[in-house]
């Protein structure tokens, strides 16, 4: 029996290594400075992916700026202000539902609501808003857990010094919960930066360099999808995939280190 368990663990690790290894081995050769800095030529058959990188940055920024305050605000409300009542249950269920809606349904919603109904047209801004909605529940859920994990004694200490509830929250509770909140925001945004289905009918899929966030664009995952399914260039598809994988790995490692360092400093170790 022991061997079966060990096998299951080892298989899982091997799956990851095979996928990441394969993408990187095939994709890294395609990556060079020109690939990262040039615009695509012939729908991406040659040339680079600079506009896609910029598009990805734009949508992720919009998503972060919109979703982080909303998610953290909701988490603070539930953890600090609300008791356990019907409204709170409803809010939790709402977040679960939002987290469960398939990305393509978000895509349809983005198209019919932001692009058509609100008249935003195809734009990275509209795409960012859709991604914000998708990132919101993750940010909210992780932030709520980490705010609740802040010891009660910190709050009492602050109140006893004559701080108001809100001062206590934003001067003591939130700083203490920052590591968890950051992790939540990054998880949410990692989901946003990887998403293609939710934005494919919203961002307009333009190949040119977006100047403002209100221009149409084509974030990296969508570009990879188009390159691969329309058989435009497998080499560039590998390059794009490798860039995304590296991006995700960097984001994970960098946040983990920053969070750890902050935690160490805060706890004086």
């Amino acid at each position, binding site marked *: 029996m022991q061997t079966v368990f060990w096998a299951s663990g080892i298989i899982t690790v091997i799956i990851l290594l095979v996928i990441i290894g394969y993408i990187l081995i095939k994709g890294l050769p395609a990556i060079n400075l020109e690939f990262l800095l040039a615009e695509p030529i012939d729908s991406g058959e040659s040339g680079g992916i600079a506009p896609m990188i910029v598009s990805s940055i734009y949508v992720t920024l919009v998503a972060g700026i919109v979703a982080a305050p909303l998610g953290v605000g909701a988490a603070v409300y539930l953890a600090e202000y609300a008791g356990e009542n019907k409204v709170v249950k409803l809010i939790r269920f709402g977040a679960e539902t939002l987290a469960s809606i398939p990305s393509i349904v978000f895509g349809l919603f983005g198209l019919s609501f932001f692009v058509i109904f609100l008249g935003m047209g195809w734009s990275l801004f509209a795409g960012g808003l859709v991604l914000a909605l998708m990132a919101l529940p993750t940010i909210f859920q992780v932030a709520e857990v980490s705010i609740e994990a802040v010891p009660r004694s910190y709050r009492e*200490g602050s*109140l*006893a010094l004559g701080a108001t509830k809100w*001062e206590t929250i934003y001067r*003591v509770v939130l700083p203490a919960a920052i590591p968890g909140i950051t992790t939540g925001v990054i998880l949410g945004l990692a989901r946003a930066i990887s998403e293609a289905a939710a934005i494919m009918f919203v961002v307009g899929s333009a190949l040119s360099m977006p100047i403002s966030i209100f221009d149409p664009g084509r974030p990296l995952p969508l570009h990879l999808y188009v390159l691969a399914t329309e058989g435009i260039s497998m080499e560039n598809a590998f390059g794009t995939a490798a860039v995304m994988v590296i991006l995700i790995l960097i984001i994970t490692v960098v946040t983990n280190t920053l969070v750890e360092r902050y935690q160490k400093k*805060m*706890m004086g170790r």
Partner: protein
Amino acid sequence: MNRIEVEDLNVCFDDAHILKDINIKIPKNTVTALIGPSGCGKSTFIRTLNRMNDVISGFKHTGMIYLDGEDIYDPKIDVVDLRKKVGMVFQKPNPFPKSIFDNVAYGMKVHGISDKDVIQERVEESLKSAALWDEVKDKLDKSAMGLSGGQQQRLCIARTIAIEPEVILMDEPCSALDPISTTKIEDLIHKLKDDFTIIIVTHNMQQATRVSKYTSFFLHGEIVESNLTERLFLEPEDKRTEDYITGRFG
């Protein structure tokens, strides 16, 4: 002159009647010790004095508490102002996960003091009063969480002194500390009593005799006996007090 006067205080959490007909007068610039067995309501009592119980759902009270003649539960009173006047030190040291300096400066900042020099000066003063300055003066920007338990507790006292309260409530401030740290805090209490009115909850009867001028004995939510500490321990008037201080129960 009395700083605090409590008249017929009753406290309930939901249906549980925790404090019954409490009457006590606390004179200015003295140390008053509260003793009594676990669960008799000592913490509940001192937490009503700075209205820390307000946040607990189900908390109800009747009776009056006056601070310098003012009813502290008067709806016109701002709890924030009250807690500025009545500081509190908790059983377990609870510094914020911030630098030592920021811990002491915290109270001033929330009370709107923004002058850097004033803050700097008062942080130093408070740490000196709390007999901690020499140990931390070279690492004010380090996290307070890296201090020892005894240092943390003195930091919490410094933090409280820094907002210049009139009364300091201490809920078993030494119960989590070793004997040396305990001695340091007791010395500190001696020093502070000239400027502050101190109410200290303690389980340690020697400690009560060492630091306090008056002592009240709590039992099952009632005050059985209040007296000069010396009198209370040497010639207790109530049989229950005698039983308790001679270790026959509790």
